[in-house]
């Protein structure tokens, strides 16, 4: 809480104490980072200007295609691996299945609806309805 509000500067003698080794390393790293930032902030090279404003980061195809991890076991060959597989493999498989299911149901829904419209339409254009006389509005002058 205190650190967030105001960074505490520890004196050099405290940092030199034996138990402060970790903190000392951290403080030194922070200082170096700050110095580095200040040094390079006003050095924007031609190359940087030329390369545009999009940052391109490279990654493996594993992340591009959302692949599963390759260590797999089936049919209880290695129960340990199968337990670990639930995190990655089973989850991704289920996701795919779910996607497939919704895909089909959307299509089916449209099909079902179109046939439904036909059946309802048939009801009104059936034999009985065809024979029924239409109501004609009587003319005013009779």
């Amino acid at each position, binding site marked *: 809480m205190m650190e967030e509000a105001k960074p505490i500067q520890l004196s050099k003698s405290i940092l030199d104490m034996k138990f402060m080794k970790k903190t000392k390393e951290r403080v030194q790293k922070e200082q170096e980072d700050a110095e580095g930032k200040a040094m390079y902030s006003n050095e924007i090279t031609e190359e940087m200007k*030329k*390369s*545009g*404003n*999009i*940052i*391109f*980061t*490279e*990654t*493996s*195809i*594993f*992340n*591009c*295609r*959302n*692949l*599963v*991890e*390759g*260590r*797999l*076991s*089936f*049919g*209880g*060959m*290695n129960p340990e*691996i199968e337990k*670990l597989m639930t995190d990655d*493999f089973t989850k*991704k*498989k289920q*996701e*795919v299945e779910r996607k497939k299911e919704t895909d089909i149901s959307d299509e089916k829904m449209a099909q079902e609806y179109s046939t439904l419209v036909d059946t309802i339409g048939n009801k009104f254009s059936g034999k009985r309805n065809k024979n029924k006389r239409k109501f004609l509005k009587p003319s005013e002058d009779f």
Partner: protein
Amino acid sequence: MVEDVNENTTVFPGEVIKDVKAVKGVTILGPGLKRNEDPPNTLRITRAGKLQFKPPNIYWVSHNHKRYIPKRGDLVVGIIVKKAGDSLRIDIGSGEYASLSMLAFEGATKKQKPDVQVGDVIYGKLLNAHREMEPELVCVDSYFKAGKMGPLSNDGFVFTVSLGLVHRLLDPENPILTALGKVFPYEIAVGMNGKVWVNGRNTKEVLTVLRCLETAELHDDKVIVELCRQSK
């Protein structure tokens, strides 16, 4: 020049892609693409294949190849070729052997090192893979837990398949591995480097998996699934 990016456009090395989509100024590139210097904010194709785009900002070129180029974070299968002090040399099928520290196993200490020999097979993660540097493997995650990684049993069998097949097999939509699993129990480690380790109840079943994957190299997924269905 490819003006508009359609999925599955065939592209060739040297072509330039304009109108690159980015999210907060960041675009993620998979294999087969490089940043283009002039004009800025464009991409240059480095491999022939099909250009793929995944919203919002991921581009890559999909193509089949056999040479493995190490990429950070890849899970690979490797064979120990040399033991040198505290580190191991691992053949992962790339241009250079990868190094794996003996301390990068779960529960390993300076005094208590893992029992691994030359010729053993390892499933590990690439911690560091740079063009000018030796690739570095680890067998633990960031919490020092092994998880799925570590030495693979000596009962298994190792062979190499094309990288295109690896990407196909590991696609969650692909039915091959699950279909095989319904016929007989087996375990497999498919490395992103194209090396595959298989273990089954007996030699015959291991070889069946091998044959299936060899067939899958040339045939459709449906062929394998059909074969599995018949043999059940």
